[in-house]
Structure formats: C-alpha cells, structure tokens
C-alpha cells in the first residue's frame, strides 16, 4: 500500500518563496502542499483548518513572528511539526528560535528536496 504523502502548510509573506516552496514539494512524492499562509496569525488559523503534519515557517512575518506562531501551533497541535526557514545565518538566529518547538532550522539557500527528506526522516520516531 502506498504511503500517504505528508500534508504541508507553507508560511511566508513573500509570494515568491511560497511559490518556490511549492515547486520544491511538487518534485517530492512523499509530500504535498495543502495550503499557504502569509502571516503568523494566518498560519495558526490554517493549521487549525487543514491539520498539516508539517509546516514550513518563515521567521520574519508581518504580525506575530514565525517563532511565536510555531510556539502557538506546537502548544495546540503537538503532532504538527514545524520547520523554520529564513535567511538568517545560524549564528544570527534569534535565541528563542531554538526553544519554540521547531524540529529544525534551515537557511532558505539550503532548502532542497534531499535536505527536507533527511530532516523529516530523522524527525520520525522509529518503529
């Protein structure tokens, strides 16, 4: 039986990056984009509505930040994993990025199918 693709919500205030992330997911049979959001508040609402298993979350967003949105999503939906994506160098990441419950942080420049696949696989509990 084929495994169901992982439903993914894409959160970024720039349409360009939302579209680019969709292009990445489109070549990955194991994942499917189920929706998009452009702000932290909208992301929280879309998780409620769409129940994605994975959220690709930009950090710098209008309204609440991606870090705060991650915190809220993780508190309400512990089964939804969030991966932070941004253009911060790892050493410049806001301190609370590491404590908001995200499974990983990835620079946008490094985001590609193999990397997403690996992070997701490592995140999955064995057995």
């Amino acid at each position, binding site marked *: 039986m084929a495994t169901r693709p992982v439903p993914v919500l894409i959160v970024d205030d720039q349409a*360009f990056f939302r*579209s680019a992330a969709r292009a990445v997911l489109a070549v990955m049979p194991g994942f499917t984009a189920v929706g998009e959001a452009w702000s932290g508040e909208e992301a929280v609402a879309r998780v409620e509505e769409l129940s994605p298993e994975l959220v690709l979350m930009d950090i710098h967003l209008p309204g609440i930040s991606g870090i705060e949105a991650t915190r809220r999503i993780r508190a309400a939906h512990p089964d939804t994993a969030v991966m932070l994506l941004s253009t911060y160098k790892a050493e410049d990441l806001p301190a609370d990025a590491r404590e908001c419950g995200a499974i990983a942080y990835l620079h946008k*420049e490094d*985001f*590609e*199918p193999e990397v997403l696949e690996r992070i997701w696989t490592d995140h999955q509990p064995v057995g």
Partner: protein
Amino acid sequence: MPIRVVLAEDSYLVREGVRRLLETEPDIDLVDVCEDYDSLLEAISSADPDVVLTDIRMPPTGTDEGIRAAERLRQTHPAAGVVLLSQYADPAYALAFLEHGTEGRAYLLKERVADLDHLLAAIREVAEGGSVIDPKVVETLVTARSQAAQSPLARLTPREREVLSLLAEGKSNAAVADGLVLSERAVEKHINSIFAKLGLPEAREAHRRVKAVLLFLAEQR
C-alpha cells in the same frame, strides 16, 4: 523576439522560484538553467543568451563565480546583458562587477527577485544595454562614502547625492527628474555641478556619468 535568458543559481529554492516566475512571461525565453560555474559557461556558449541572470557565489568555490562569468562575457559575448543576484549589499562585489563598465549590467539583491516586476525590469534593461543598481546597494555606498570626509563626494549637497544615487541605478535624466520631482533642466544643473565637484573633465556626457558612478563606488575599496 523574446529575450533569451540563461539562469545560474545554486540555491534550489531561488532557482525553482525564478524559473517559475520567468516561465510565465511571454517575452522571456528561459533557454537554460544551471547550478554552477562550469555549466553556466557551457550554457552561454551553446545557447548564446541575450541575458545571463546569475548568483554571485556558486560551486566550485562559492566565492565570485557570477562576477567572473560576467567578466568573461565581456570578451566572448559583449552584447549580452548580466543581472547579478546578491544575498547582501556588498560594495566590494558591486565594484568588481561594474569596474569595467556599467552598460548591460544590473546588480540586484536576492530579496528583489521576489518582486517579478523588479526582476523583469532589470532583465529588460540590461538586454537593451542599460544598467540597474539596487537602491540598497547604492544606499550602502552613499552612507559609507559620505562618511569619508576627504572624499570629493563629501562636497556634494544632499540633493546632488540623491541625483548621483539615481544615476548609479542607471536612471535617465528624465527618470531622475520624475523620481525627485524636479525639472529635467534642474537635474542637468545638478549633474553638471556633480561633475565639477568630482573634478571630472569635459568629455562625452555618457562617459562622465559612468565615471561619476564609478568614483562613487571606487572609494569603497
């Protein structure tokens, strides 16, 4: 005739995003997409593009591949335009990219590629031999420059500095006039004053414009 574009970008996300954007434009023909320096050189040689849209840092060294490809293009394909995409506003890269001439050259920050109109305007501009320098890069240069008290640029009035920064973006006198809400005649006066203060001798107007912009960039070194 559509503008034939070769794209070179090692970031998967940016590459796929730009590819998607450009593929929807009827006047752009994306003829090849590359991920590193060597494949970019091959694509230029086989596709003979009108415009190369390239990242600065790519494999194999991840340093200045885009700038080196642009420099090489001056010899092999002098009519081809180059839009250089940079992650940060880096004056040293801007200078290296523009020091042998600004014609057909655009320097854009990557954050601009998200704005399709901005990206398309740069592609069309360099295809026609024009130039575009990202306002943020210009701003970085202006700030650094104006801090150098001994610089001839320090003698410019704030208005003249504004005019020069717009010239550095490749704008015509008419566009500068529009941007600053001045008459074209007033812009010409400012430009003549800039040339005089920078000590640029009488010569062809276009040559002096390029010189003024380069002087502006050069003292970053």
